C-alpha cells in the first residue's frame, strides 16, 4: 500500500493526515480555507462548534511536547470532541508492550482518531496502515520526517500576512534542516502552493544529503540566503547538536546564522519572520527580532488551533462506514 494513497480515500478526501507529500494543491488549499472559517470561531466568546460531538480523539504522544499537544487538545475541544491524552514515554511501551498492542488496546475503547507524535520517522504512517478502518490518524510529528499540521499553520500564517499569491513570494528556511521534520513539510507545502522561490540556509553539517532534492535552493550564507526574501522561517536549534560535532558553539552559530535586526536589512523591507517555537533567544534570533514588528511567531501559535480544527474535521467528515 502506498503512503500517498493511505491518506486520501477513494473520493479524494482526507482520510489520514500523515505528510504533505502525496497531497495535491486543491486539498491543501481546502485545509487553509476551512481553517479560515474556524479562525473566526476561536475569537468568539463561545468558542465551540458541535462538529465532532460524541467523537473520541486520542492524543498519543510518544515524545514530549507541550505546545503541539495543547493546541491539538484545544482544537479537538472546540470541535466538541472528547479528548484523551496519553503520554507513552511514561506508559506501557516502557513495560514492554509493543506499539501495535497499545494501538489495539486503544481501538478496543472505540476511539475515532489518533493524534500521533513519535520519535521514529514513519511511525504515523505505520499506525495509519495498521489502525482499524474507521480510525483517522493525524501526524503530530514523526522523527525527522514530517510535521504536516505545523507546515499548514505556517502556510496559513503566510497567506494571511502576504496574501494567496505564493508565486510572488521568496521564502527562506534557516537552520537545522537535517533534523527538521518541520522544514521537510514546509518545503513540500511551499512547492505545492507554487511558491516563487524556496531557499534553505544552513552550514553543510546541518543539511541532509542531496538537500536540493527536497525542492529548495541551498545557501550556506545567511546574508545571501535571505537577500530580498519576503518570509524568513527560523528553525529551532537543539542543544545536543553541539555534542554531535555538528556545530562548534551556539556563539558561532548565532554570529553566522542567527537573525538580528542588522542582518534583516538584506531581506525585503516588509519581510515576515517566523519560528515554529520554542525559540532559543540569542541562538536562532535576537529578542529584538523575535518580539519585533516583523515577527508573527505568536500568530503562528494561534493559527495552529484553527488549522488543526480544519484537519480534524475534514478527516472526520467522511461518511460512516466509508473506509476509502
Amino acid at each position: 500500500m502506498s503512503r500517498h494513497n493511505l491518506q486520501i480515500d477513494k473520493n479524494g478526501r482526507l482520510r489520514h493526515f500523515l505528510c504533505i507529500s502525496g497531497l495535491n494543491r486543491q486539498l491543501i488549499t481546502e485545509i487553509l480555507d476551512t481553517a479560515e472559517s474556524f479562525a473566526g470561531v476561536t475569537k468568539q466568546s463561545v468558542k465551540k462548534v458541535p462538529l465532532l460531538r460524541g467523537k473520541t480523539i486520542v492524543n498519543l504522544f510518544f515524545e514530549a511536547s507541550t505546545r503541539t499537544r495543547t493546541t491539538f487538545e484545544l482544537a479537538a475541544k472546540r470541535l466538541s470532541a472528547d479528548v484523551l491524552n496519553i503520554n507513552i514515554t511514561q506508559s506501557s511501551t516502557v513495560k514492554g508492550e509493543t506499539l501495535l498492542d497499545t494501538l489495539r488496546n486503544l481501538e478496543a475503547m472505540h476511539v475515532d482518531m489518533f493524534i500521533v507524535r513519535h520519535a521514529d520517522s514513519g511511525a504515523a504512517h505505520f499506525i495509519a496502515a495498521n489502525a482499524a478502518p474507521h480510525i483517522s490518524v493525524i501526524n503530530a510529528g514523526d522523527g525527522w520526517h514530517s510535521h504536516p499540521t505545523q507546515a499548514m499553520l505556517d502556510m496559513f500564517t503566510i497567506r494571511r500576512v502576504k496574501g494567496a499569491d505564493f508565486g510572488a513570494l521568496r521564502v527562506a528556511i534557516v537552520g537545522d534542516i537535517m533534523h527538521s521534520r518541520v522544514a521537510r513539510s514546509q518545503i513540500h507545502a511551499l512547492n505545492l502552493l507554487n511558491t516563487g522561490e524556496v531557499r534553505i540556509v544552513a552550514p553543510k553539517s546541518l543539511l541532509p544529503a542531496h538537500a536540493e532534492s527536497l525542492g529548495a535552493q541551498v545557501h550556506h550564507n545567511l546574508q545571501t540566503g535571505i537577500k530580498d526574501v519576503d518570509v524568513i522561517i527560523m528553525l529551532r536549534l537543539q542543544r545536543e547538536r553541539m555534542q554531535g560535532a555538528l556545530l562548534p558553539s551556539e556563539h558561532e552559530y548565532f554570529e553566522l546564522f542567527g537573525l538580528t535586526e542588522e542582518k534583516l536589512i538584506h531581506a525585503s523591507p516588509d519581510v515576515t519572520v517566523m519560528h515554529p517555537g520554542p525559540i532559543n533567544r540569542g541562538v536562532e534570533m535576537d529578542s529584538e527580532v523575535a518580539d519585533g514588528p516583523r515577527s508573527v511567531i505568536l500568530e503562528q501559535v494561534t493559527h495552529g488551533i484553527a488549522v488543526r480544527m480544519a484537519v480534524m474535521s475534514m478527516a472526520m467528515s467522511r461518511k460512516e462506514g466509508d473506509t476509502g
Partner: protein
Amino acid sequence: MPANDTATRILIRGGRVIDPANKVDTIQNVYIVDGKVVAFDHAPQGFRADMEIDASHLIVCPGLVDICARLREPGQEQKATIATESLAAASAGITTLCCPPDTNPVIDTPAVTEFIRLRAEAAGHCRIVTLGALTQSLRGEQLSEMAALGRAGCVGVSNALQPLLNPLILRRALEYAATFDLTVFLHPNDHWLANKGCAHEGRVATRLGLRGIPEAAETAAVARDLALIEQTGVRAHFCRLTSGRAARMVARARYDGAPVTADVAIPYLYLSEMDISDFDTQCHLIPPLRTVEDRQQLRDAMQQGTLSAICSDHQPHEPDAKTGPFPATEPGISGLDSLLPLCLRLVDEQSIELADLIHRLTAGPARILGLPYGTLSVDAIADICIFDPSSSWLLDTNTIRSNGLNTPFMGWEMKGRVTHTLLAGKLVYALN
C-alpha cells in the same frame, strides 16, 4: 521427502550438466556411488542403479553453497531453527551453508561450533559450516581462541556485524588469524560514520527523514581493511558489499595481487534505496540498500568476478520483528527460498551467463570458504542440485519453507524450481 535415502548407487539420467569449475555444459548422465560422483556419460563397469532420477529437460549442477545464512539457533529459536532452515535450504538446492558467529551464545568456543554441527547432523538436510568469532563475544576487545576454533572446524573467523573499533586490535586479530591460515570475513562498515543509521544516506532517506548511513561508512572501512590486509598478509573476504565504489576498490586490490575476495547478497542486485520509499520494513537491510547506480555496478562487479559469490544473506524473522516504524524494526530478509530463482532471473535479464551465474553460487563461494564442494568432477562429493529452469511458481506463504516470511519478494513469480537435492549422494529433497 527422500524417495529412497538408502540408495547408494544413483543414476541421474539425461540432464544438462553444468559444472562451471570444469567448464562443463553438456547433456550427460551422472553416476554416483557411495556419496561420490564416479562417472559421467557412460556407466562404470558393473554399475546397477538403486535409484534413477530422470533429469531430461532439467539442469544438473553442483549443490549450491550459501556463504551467509543465519539459522537463529542457538539463541533466537522464536525466529527459526537449524532444522527448519536447513530443510528450507535443501528444498532450495543449497547443500552447504555458512553460519556467521553472531548466534547467542556467540561462536567463540568450540562447544558452540560442535552444538551447531550436531544439530545440523541430526536434521540431516544440509551441510552447515561455521565462522568463528574474531574477538571474544564479538566485543572487539580480546582475541578469540582462533586456533581452537579452526581445529573445531570453523572455516574462517569474523566479527560479523559487530564493530571492531580499535584498528590496532583489528591488526592483531588479522595477524593472529594469518598465523593459523584462517580466512577473515570482514563486514566493512565504519561504526562512527554509520552513526546508527537505518538507510542509505541519499535522496530517499533525506525525504523520509531517516538517519542515513553514508557510502563512506563502507568505503572508509574497505580502505582501512585493505591497508591492514596488505600489512598483515592475511587472506580476507569482504562480506556483502553494497556500493559500486567499494567493489571497484576491491577489484583494484585484487588486480594488485591482494589476497582478497568479496561477495554480494542477492537482494542488493534487485532492490535499491527507492524500495524503502513507503517505509517498507521488508526492505530494511543492514548494510543498507544503496542507489540504482550502485545496484547496476554491483551487477557488473558480480559479472566480472570481483564479487565471486552471491549469497542469500538469509535472516529469518518472526512477524513482530518487522512490525513497527521503519527505524525500530529489525533488518534482514528471509532469502533461502528465493536465492536460485532470483539468481536465474539475472540470466534472463542478461546480467550474466548461466554458467558464470552457477559458478557464483557453487565453486565461487566454495573456494572462498576453502571447501572442496561446488564442483562435479569424478571423485567429488556428490552434492547436486537439479532444477527445472522453466518452471514458474509463486513465492507466497504456502510455498516458502523457511520459518521467516519476511521478504519483499513475497508475491513475485519465481522462475526456476529445484526438483532434487543430493547431499553427499543422499537424496535430501525431491519435489512432490
